[in-house]
């Protein structure tokens, strides 16, 4: 795989992303390409549901390697991220050795790799093949863990007091994602290549819908993308609809044999897009299905006409 990475060109990466159905643009591809080539972690920020995590999955598919995921949460510590000794197994071993008088047990016997429970970071470092390490929602952890993490990301080696230093066989492709809940430290940012993914434009979202759900007619895709875009920009929502929710909505509409949006359908399926009571109330109060439908029809017509005349780059979640 290392040879594969050495010889990788940006055009090949682009083709591979397209083959995986991930609609991307030049900026996104160049950034990923640089992170791979410079062997630096890639820090991806953006609103929830814009396709940050998906990039790691796509990369692991492209390079046919294992995706090792470390899901961060408040209170995550080294034991859960790095390694832990299998205490139960060690105790059983000690107990068994007591009962078998002939067997003398040394410290090395119980602190050997077979008693080590690998957690994602150690697993990525010890992997035989260069793995993709996804550190998801890094902003959910506390600052102490973040400091510990960027130490590991600089050297790709871990000291286990009982075993010694474990150095990475292959430097993994590291993807860190953040929803910007908490400001990350400058130290961590400095060590990473940075990518910000915004919600897609209408044209990009049409492209995503049509790539992911080929059954969707062009008319429906245009109307859905326009409606979601309108909701994101014109309503103050607690949670804006993500791309995954757009796709769920599209699938639901197709299941209902819809080839265009109408107020009744919107009313019946809005729960797939807005998943918060306050957001649904805000939608009913400030916009409503009828108004959304008429706005969508007007905007979709003019936007799509414009898009047909000047095709733009498309990107985002696939």
């Amino acid at each position, binding site marked *: 795989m290392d040879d594969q990475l050495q010889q990788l060109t940006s055009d090949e990466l682009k083709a591979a992303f397209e083959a995986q159905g991930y609609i991307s643009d*030049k900026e996104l591809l160049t950034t990923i390409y640089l992170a791979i080539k*410079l062997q630096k972690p890639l820090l991806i920020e953006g609103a929830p549901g814009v396709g940050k995590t998906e990039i790691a999955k796509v990369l692991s598919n492209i390079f046919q390697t294992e995706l090792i995921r470390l899901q961060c949460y408040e209170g995550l510590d080294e034991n859960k991220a790095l390694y832990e000794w299998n205490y139960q197994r060690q105790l059983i071993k000690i107990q068994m050795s007591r009962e078998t008088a002939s067997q003398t047990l040394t410290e090395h016997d119980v602190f050997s790799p077979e008693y080590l429970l690998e957690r994602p970071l150690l697993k990525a470092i010890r992997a035989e093949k260069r793995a993709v390490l996804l550190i998801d929602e890094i902003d959910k952890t506390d600052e102490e863990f973040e400091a510990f993490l960027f130490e590991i990301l600089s050297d790709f080696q871990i000291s286990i007091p009982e075993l010694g230093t474990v150095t990475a066989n292959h430097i993994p492709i590291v993807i860190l994602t953040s929803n910007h809940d908490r400001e990350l430290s400058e130290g961590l940012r400095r060590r990473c290549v940075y990518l910000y993914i915004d919600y897609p434009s209408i044209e990009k979202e049409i492209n995503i819908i049509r790539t992911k759900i080929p059954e969707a007619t062009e008319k429906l895709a245009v109307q859905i993308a326009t409606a979601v875009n309108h909701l994101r920009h014109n309503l103050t929502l607690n949670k804006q609809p993500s791309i995954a929710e757009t796709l769920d909505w599209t699938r639901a509409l197709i299941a209902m044999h819809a080839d265009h949006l109408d107020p009744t359908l919107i009313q019946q399926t809005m729960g797939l897009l807005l998943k918060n009571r306050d957001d649904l109330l805000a939608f009913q109060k400030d916009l409503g299905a009828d108004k959304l439908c008429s706005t969508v029809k007007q905007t979709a017509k003019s936007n799509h006409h414009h898009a047909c005349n000047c095709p733009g780059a498309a990107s985002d979640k696939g």
Partner: protein
Amino acid sequence: MNSLADNIVGFIQILRQLGVRISTAETIDAVDSLTIIDNFNQAEFKAALKSTLIKHAEDQAAFNHAFNLFFVPPEAKQQQQSAWDSKQQLDLEQSKQADEELVFQGRPLEISEDLKDVYKMLPEKEKQRLQEFLEKTSTGKNVKESFQPVVENLLKSSLSFWQRQLSTEDLAQLAAARRQLLGHDELDHVVDSAAGLGGTGGNPLLYKNMQEIAEQEIPQVTALIKRLASRLTTRISRRFRMTGRRKLIDIRKSIRRNMRYGGIMISLKYKTKKIHKPNIVIVCDVSASMTKYVRFTLPLLFGLSSVVKNIESFIFATDLERVTDYFRHSNDFAQVTEELITNSAQMGQGTNLFIALSSLEEHHRNLLTPSTLLFIISDANTLAPQETASQLALISQKVKRVLWLNTQPQERWPQNSAISLFSKYCAMFECYSLAHLTKILSLNLTRQS
């Protein structure tokens, strides 16, 4: 500025002048990245620089502006250069004119460059009025040379008044005028033009000065504040609590537990980090000087109270008034505001933070604990600043941290001597927009900086 390396270094200088933090390691990464990209076109070149130099989403607009102004064909660069030269010339002429106009009996007045910049921005009519005043006093009967300091002080007071009246945009323009330039024309004109473009590309409401917020925007502001407030709800502490799930072994408890089995570790006890919820006390200024910010402060109180459970809110002007119950009992912001305005005796009164803090310390002592975060939302214009500072010092020793959200732009802080006094006992943040609030709430507020 001929080689690519020169251009990259120059471009990084520009970004630094625009407030983007770029380390030497990142500069090296940027140069390295250019050796890696295959197709050397503008889009990839831009993406390479952006991904290695820009590490905050909010810096992207500055990067885009600077890139579009700096990496241009030679003809466009020439045009920009001419425009910059004309602007510099105009600025020089204006400064010269101001120096000529601000004289007393033919001698130049000793006025700071800041105030001279304010004078240059004044409407022509106001400039005329000041010139007439100087003319009259210069030629008045029995007006001697020694009268100059008095004239200077009068003029300074007048210009300071105008400085306080300036809008945020004017202040930004003034800050731009005082920005230390790089002394390299080719770079300086980009810094100047990019800074003038401003903007971040995000939600415009985030960057709006909250005194200019419209009635119909209040629901949006409240919703945004509620979203931000959730960041305050939990903080991980270093303390541990017992847990049944496998976390970290609690050696002490495991040994005690297993003594009954003759020291054989049969039953292990685990511990995990405790989720710590800070106690929050908010003291919000609703005096006359803060009335223009009421569309920000009340949604802020409402938003925080509806999301954070253990919160106590107070308003103050001439005295302190507890308002926690207003917010606790209702989900309707309009209703809460109406009740508050009708029932409160504090709205629009004078300001005495000393009395408010004394009252807090005396009557609500139980709230001021080592785990309390005390937020003060005020423009720091108060009576008895010395006494207030002493009281603040006393309270700051009792609570975990005092955080002051100041609605005055930071450029104006030097004009209020009380601010430097208060800053010794609290962490003071500029906070007149939702963008400021976002930034503040993303910091680890429980940690002393």
